[in-house]
């Protein structure tokens, strides 16, 4: 694995520490969906830091987040949070961990229960952890304000809101228990361009205020550069490059990261033409383009 910039493994003050993680799913017999597999992934996240995790579909980037959250069983390796092993945590320990570890999913349309009002959705985590109903209601109001949604949203159903607004509700839900680490699993990929910017800026603002750390999973290099302090690039279940965001996304060393970077088109005609030419050269240099995958 290429380390660009600061060495990423074995940071002394890490909040989350993943070491040599292996995850695999049993085969189903059909060839259709390839299952994500992790082949010994190691990474650290420090308090208040955003680690961007970039990869294409099937790379395993979503699986890492799900493994941290306990939604997926791990084969081997370790996940340590605040010094304590969590990959072996039992159900009751997991429930306690939910105070510290939260998630924002990709799809704003299915990550909120369509039958519950916004207020109910937001108060679920609070009530589930023993808060009283009145106190929960007050907290819901605060959360809505925090994500810049009107307070009357609490009585409405998700379908009355746009994708961007729903995603903000999802963020509010993640914040309800004052987490220290939030797994952001492609939180803006399903949103419009203009909405993306607002949601990303909201996430940054929250990090500024609360010092929460993010594991920010995405396939978009420009988004990851905007959001992350450090970036890790994953391919086929293994990390190929990690380092400071700026370094990895503007001057990547690993050919895969380079190919990724050059493949994403930019909104400038002359620049894009130049990048196309570089990409073509890179393709000839490393052999056949990714025709087998596409």
């Amino acid at each position, binding site marked *: 694995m290429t380390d660009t910039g600061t060495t990423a493994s074995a940071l002394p003050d890490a909040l989350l520490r993943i070491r040599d993680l292996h995850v695999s799913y049993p085969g189903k*017999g*059909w060839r259709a969906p390839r299952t994500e597999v992790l082949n010994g992934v190691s990474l650290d996240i420090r308090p208040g830091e955003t680690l961007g995790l970039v990869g294409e579909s099937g790379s395993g980037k979503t699986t890492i987040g799900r493994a941290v959250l306990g939604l997926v069983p791990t084969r081997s390796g370790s996940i340590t949070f605040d010094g304590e092993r969590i990959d072996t945590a039992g159900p009751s320990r997991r429930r306690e961990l939910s105070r510290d570890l939260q998630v924002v999913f990709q799809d704003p349309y299915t990550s909120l229960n369509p039958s519950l009002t916004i207020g109910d959705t937001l108060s679920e985590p609070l009530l589930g952890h023993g808060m009283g109903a009145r106190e929960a209601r007050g907290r819901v109001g605060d959360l809505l304000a925090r994500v810049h949604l009107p307070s009357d949203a609490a009585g409405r159903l998700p379908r009355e809101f746009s994708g961007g607004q729903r995603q903000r509700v999802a963020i509010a839900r993640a914040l309800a228990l004052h987490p220290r680490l939030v797994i952001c699993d492609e939180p803006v990929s399903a949103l419009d361009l203009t909405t993306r910017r607002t949601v990303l800026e909201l996430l940054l603002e929250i990090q500024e205020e609360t010092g929460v750390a993010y594991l920010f999973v995405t396939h978009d290099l420009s988004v990851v550069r905007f959001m992350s302090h450090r970036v890790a690039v994953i391919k086929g279940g293994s990390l190929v490059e990690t380092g400071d965001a700026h370094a990895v996304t503007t001057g990547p060393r690993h050919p895969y990261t380079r190919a990724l970077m050059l493949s994403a088109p930019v909104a400038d005609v002359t620049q894009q033409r130049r990048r196309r030419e570089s990409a073509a050269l890179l393709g000839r240099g490393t052999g056949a383009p990714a025709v087998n995958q596409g």
Partner: protein
Amino acid sequence: MLKFIARRIAAGAVLLVVISFLSYLLLSVPDADVGRQLLGQGADQAAVDAKNASLGLDRPVLTQYADWLAHAVRGDLGTSWFTSEDVGTAVAGRLPVTASLTLGVTLVTTVVSFLLGVWAGVRRGAADRFVQVLGVIGYALPGFLVTLVIVLVFAVNLNWFPAIGYTAFTESPGGWLSTITLPVLSLAVASVAGVSQQVRGAVVDVLRQDYVRTLRARGLPTSRIVFRHVLRNASAPALSVLGMQFVGLLGGAVLVEQIFGLPGIGSMTVTYTTRGDIPVIMALVMFTVIGVVLINLLVDTMIGWLNPKARAA
């Protein structure tokens, strides 16, 4: 594909054994004292005991079952306790009647439901509403009620078909047709109502798919798309329902055979269950289950053949 079929046959065999065991167990529960029933209340105890012994009823249930099973796999289903006829022959003799009834209904249902369902699913509007109304009527009226009405109208009033009786196909095809028509019609009403609904729904779902739009964009006419692509993709859910309906058909056949006096397995079930004649009941249950397993196997195989993903499994 062959592995798939083999696995289903094996599963069916297991099902048969389990059901036969449970049935035998349950049938042996009541203290029926068959001997006494056969010889009458006045007979003395010794004779009754001798009779029971001769039927093997003094042995433990498990032994009785094992004995029955051992004979059954060799094709010997024993003799009826009450009529002393060979069970195998008796039941097999009545199979063709029920078979022609149920298979006739299945055929009619398949053809009519597909036509109706495709018509309703493609045209929507009035055709759709008609099929839905048909569905309500078919579900709402219990099968035997429909049968009674049909008998009243077509047999009693109009006298187009006989109300009672059965002519085997081998005797006279025309007679067979005339005696089988009303029974098939009675059962087909409910069947068509259910399956055409499912076909209509499946057709509507397929027509909404992206690939139908893309095929249109390439210049294919709607009729072509419907008869090749929609039918192919809508068949699987429809076949599923057909398979499930078959079980219900066998139950409905019981009533229909009673009403029309058809000498089939259904009417046999009614007569012999009232008597508690275990060998016969066991045979009836077995044949029924075999029929269900075979039909489901056929349906699953066809669905598998239609769906390339399942074929690979």
